Structures are given as structure tokens and as C-alpha cells.
């Protein structure tokens, strides 16, 4: 293919300028890959921590109801739905926990620890004690780390719980958990039956949590449960709609910057190509006289844009990969419990990001090459040959 020969010679004949345009593309690609990897990192940490620490679907009583009465039948029904991994019914109430002079308001969950653990993996979050200690219906309680700190309590201490219309009751702390989320400050767990008793309720629950195998099908499944049972089912996606849409907005904002960065690097390519075309007018005329078609002339300069762009993309991908790995390996001092317990910037190296950045760069570079290429291909051969 003589077009490629000519394109390569043109590039080699202007090594310094072509090098600069390649570096510009490479830097753009590298910057964007690092930025995308960080976005992916934040996104995955956010989603992971959300889907790990929350039920994927939460079922609440229907309109004008306070409780789900026939919750065992509902559990069975949901268990049999496809894609459901675990179901956990809970009784949720508000309470004030007191230890000596400290009082903290909490959300108190009465659960079956075995079921609840299957839905939110709470056992993995235990810093002390066992979540399973809530198995038997005694006055035991598991609290979040920050809640424990605020109350100044530790394992084995006894706190007094007061609730609306409930007798003050002493609970013994048999576990402390830390999830890195708000729950650490506001949540406490007790045995389901014990709590039903505490609040003077019959054998009813206030909600059912569901864990599914594919978190992205949660919304669909929630709608189905809603429809089939008449209860009010919400997916984690809808519960976190605000934060997810904020992420999407920031992603499209960032996308706008990607376009600007790539456009700047695209100008570098356009610039060098315009320079080559201007310098090679006579040559283009002679190539036409030798029978080179306008399409081939166009191809020569598009190839040049493609080669410069591709080289930039390859170098940039390597640079971006190295930079992302380097950033991921730096440990930064953050107070524990903040930022989901991360101690370094979240970086997720996703092949998709490299493909996106590369394709994006190539498209912009080819657009940048299109103008000079078109200009070259439209030259009048006689004028071009006699151009000085």
C-alpha cells in the first residue's frame, strides 16, 4: 500500500513536530484513563458499600398499615422468586439507649441474626463479639462502633433502652460492628422476638429485607414484588436514586472535560497535518499526475492522523496504566471510619475505560485529520504542481 509508505515518510520527515503531537495525544489519553479509573473506583466503592450494607430490596407494609402481619408466608413467597438469595424480616423501632449519663437515640432492629446476616453480611463487620449472639431471645444487643464510643460502652456493659410505650429494659452488649457507613452511629440490633416483646407488639414485623444475586435486577424484582404482594417494595437503586443520579451528573460533567482535553490534543494533530499538507502541495500535485486518486490522497493524510493518534493512544494507555497503578499504591492518611474506611484513592483499572479513551481519542484525531485530508484531496492538480 503506497499510501501507507507515503504517510510514514511524511511523519518521519517531521520528527520533532510529530513527536509533540503524539505526546499531546498520549498525555490526554493518560490523564483521561487515570480520571476514569478514579471515577470507576469511587463508583464501585460507593455501590459496593451500598449493596453490601443494605438490603437490595426492602419491603414495607402497604398503605395505611403499620405492620406486615403474615410475614412468614411473605418470606416463603419471596424465597421462591428467581434471583433471590436471602430474606430477612425485621422489627424496626426507635429507642434511646442510656449508659450512665450518656443517652443516644438509635434505630433499633429486631432481627433473626442468621437471616439478617445473609442479607447484609453483618457478621463480617463485627469488631467484637458475634452477631449470632442475638440468636436466642435474651436481652442482648449489638451496637455500631461509633454508637458504642459515643455512649462510652464496651463489650459486656449494660445499656438501658427506652422506647415509645415501652418499659425501660436493660440490654447487654454482645457485639460491636463497623461498616464505615452512617449505620455505625445510629443502629443497634436485638433479637426479633425480644424486640416485638419490648415494643408490646404481636408476632409482626415492620419490614422485610431481600438480597438478590444480581444487584442490577433489584429494581425490576422490587416492582414485581410490589405488584404481586401489594406491599411496598423498594430497590436499593431507588433508595439511593439521589446519590446515583448525582454520580451520573458528575460523570457527564467530567465527560465534558474529556471532550475538551481530547479536542486540544486533536488540534495538535490537525496542526501538524495542515503543516504537512501545505509543505507537500507540489508533491500532492505530482502524485495526482501519476494517477493517485483523490481517495488515495485523502487516505494518505487520514492514515497520518491515524498513525499519530494510534501511537499516542498506545503510549498514553501505558502511561495511564502506570500512573493509575502508582496512584492506587499511595497510602493516604484518612481518619478511620471516613470515606468507607479507605486508606488510599480508589482506583479500578477497567479494560473498558482504556477502550473508551482510545476510541474517543481516535475519533477526535480522525476528525482533526479530516479537514487537512479533504483539503489535500480537493486540490487542483495543475495548480498544485506549479505551486511554489
Amino acid at each position, binding site marked *: 500500500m*503506497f499510501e501507507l509508505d507515503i504517510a510514514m*515518510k511524511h511523519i518521519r520527515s517531521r520528527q520533532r513536530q510529530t513527536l509533540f503531537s503524539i505526546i499531546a495525544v498520549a498525555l490526554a489519553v493518560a490523564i483521561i484513563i487515570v480520571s476514569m479509573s478514579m471515577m470507576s473506583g469511587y463508583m464501585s466503592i460507593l455501590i459496593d458499600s451500598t449493596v453490601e450494607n443494605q438490603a437490595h430490596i426492602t419491603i414495607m407494609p402497604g398503605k395505611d398499615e403499620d405492620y406486615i402481619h403474615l410475614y412468614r408466608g411473605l418470606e416463603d413467597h419471596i424465597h421462591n422468586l428467581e434471583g433471590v438469595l436471602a430474606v430477612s424480616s425485621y422489627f424496626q423501632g426507635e429507642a434511646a439507649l442510656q449508659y450512665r449519663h450518656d443517652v443516644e437515640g438509635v434505630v433499633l432492629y429486631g432481627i433473626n441474626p442468621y437471616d439478617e446476616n445473609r442479607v447484609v453480611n453483618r457478621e463480617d463487620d463485627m469488631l467484637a463479639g458475634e452477631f449470632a449472639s442475638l440468636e436466642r431471645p435474651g436481652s442482648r444487643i449489638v451496637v455500631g462502633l461509633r454508637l458504642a464510643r459515643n455512649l462510652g460502652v464496651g463489650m459486656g456493659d449494660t445499656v438501658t433502652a427506652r422506647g415509645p410505650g415501652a418499659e425501660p429494659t436493660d440490654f447487654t452488649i454482645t457485639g460491636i460492628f463497623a461498616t464505615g457507613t452512617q449505620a455505625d452511629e445510629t443502629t443497634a440490633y436485638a433479637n426479633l422476638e425480644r424486640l416485638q416483646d419490648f415494643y408490646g407488639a404481636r408476632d409482626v414485623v415492620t419490614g422485610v429485607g431481600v438480597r438478590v444475586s444480581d444487584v442490577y435486577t433489584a429494581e425490576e424484582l422490587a416492582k414485581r414484588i410490589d405488584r404481586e404482594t401489594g406491599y411496598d417494595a423498594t430497590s436499593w437503586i431507588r433508595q439511593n436514586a439521589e446519590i446515583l443520579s448525582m454520580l451520573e451528573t458528575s460523570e457527564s460533567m467530567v465527560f465534558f472535560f474529556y471532550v475538551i482535553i481530547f479536542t486540544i490534543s486533536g488540534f495538535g494533530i490537525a496542526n501538524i497535518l495542515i503543516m504537512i499538507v501545505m509543505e507537500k502541495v507540489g*508533491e500532492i*500535485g505530482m502524485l*495526482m499526475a*501519476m*494517477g*493517485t486518486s483523490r481517495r488515495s490522497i485523502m487516505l494518505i493524510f487520514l492514515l497520518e492522523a491515524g498513525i499519530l493518534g494510534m501511537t499516542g493512544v498506545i503510549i498514553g494507555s501505558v502511561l495511564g496504566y502506570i500512573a493509575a497503578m502508582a496512584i492506587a499504591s499511595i497510602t493516604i492518611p484518612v481518619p478511620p471510619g471516613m470515606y468507607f474506611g479507605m486508606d488510599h484513592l480508589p482506583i479500578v483499572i477497567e479494560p473498558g475505560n482504556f477502550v473508551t479513551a482510545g476510541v474517543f481519542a481516535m475519533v477526535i484525531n480522525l476528525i482533526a485529520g479530516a479537514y487537512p485530508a479533504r483539503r489535500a484531496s480537493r486540490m487542483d492538480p495543475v495548480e498544485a504542481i506549479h505551486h511554489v
Partner: protein
Amino acid sequence: MSEEKIIEIRDLTRIYGDGAPIRALDGVNLDIERGEFLAIIGPSGSGKSTLLHQIGILDTPTSGTILLNGVDITKMSDRERSRMRNEELGFIFQYHHLLPDFNALENVMMPLLISGVKPSRARKIAREMLEEVGLADREGHRPNQLSGGQNQRVAIARALANSPDIVIGDEPTGNLDSRASDNIYELLRRLNREHNQTFILVTHDEQMAKKTDRIIRLVDGRVVEDSG
């Protein structure tokens, strides 16, 4: 020499500009036979280059027709024109117009590569051509490493590489001293005899013109003399 007409030009007119139109060619009629070696002469601005550009399918006439090998080139698509230039025509200009980034051999190979000949075969043909113009030992040199006369020889080798029927030269020696000019003329003459290709040379060198088979004199875009 055969009596086969390779070029038939009828009422060829080329008008430039629209404000104050210039009739660069004004109703030219001309028949040229295969293997002819002819000179086009005339004062500066008389339309010599314009006529060559028309024959070379580098430009389109305002009116009139040109048949190359019986085909009307004024009605061709852009693609066909390119193909025709590649296969049927060889160009030599006053300046060699070699591609500066390629060496002599690669320059001569170019028309062959454009027409899709395999590189190995193109290289072989190009070597033969360079040998014919006496530059076999310079094939690796770039244009800036060769003299004006040598570059013009490479340009000639390139013009003939694809065995075109017609070779056109617009003042091919205009940029050379008289000795180099004579050498180039001798070379063209020899190639014309050996390959039986049609050579059409524009020149203002009367001495050189006299050595051709036929002289066409243009004045103000008209053929005023056709002797041969």
C-alpha cells in the same frame, strides 16, 4: 512508423477567468500518431502548458474534445481520469517533482505501486528503468543527493516506468545547463526509438525543437504552424 492516431484534438478551447476571459487555447485541432516525437513551441503565454495539461488530463477544457486511443477523455469521471493518467501517461515537468522523502528507486517505483503492481515486481522494473537512464548506481540516493540533471533522469525513468503510451514534457530541460539539456534530449530520443512511445515536449529551445520529428507552433492559443 504506423499510421495509428493516438491523440485526436478537436476544436479544443480553454478559457480562464470570467471577468476578462483569457482564451488560453482557442479552437485547437491536432492529430498525433503513435511513436511520434514532437515539439510544441511558441512565445510565453501562447498556451503550450495549457495544451499539455489538457492532453495530460490534468485539466478540463471549456469546449472541444480530446480522444486518447479513441476514448473521449473530456467525458471521464475523476476516477477514470486518475487511472488513465497512471496507465497511459507519463509526465516530466521543468522541476523534477520527485518525492523528497523517497530515494531514486522508490520514486521510480511510485507509478507502479499506484497502479497496484506488487512491490517486488515494481522494484525490478524500476531498476531496469534507472539502468536505462544511466543511474543504476544511484538508486539509493535521495533527490537532494543528486544533481539537477540526475534528478531529471530519475523523473524520466519514473515517467516511463508504467510503460505509458504518451510521455509529455513541459520544458523538461528548462532548468538545466546546455550540456545536461543535450544529454536529456538524447536520452528522450533514444527511449522514444526503443519503446515506440509518443513524446510531446514543450520547449522554447529552438535548437532542441529542430531535432524533433515535428514542430507545432502556438500563438495566442492557436496552432499557427505544423511542420514535420
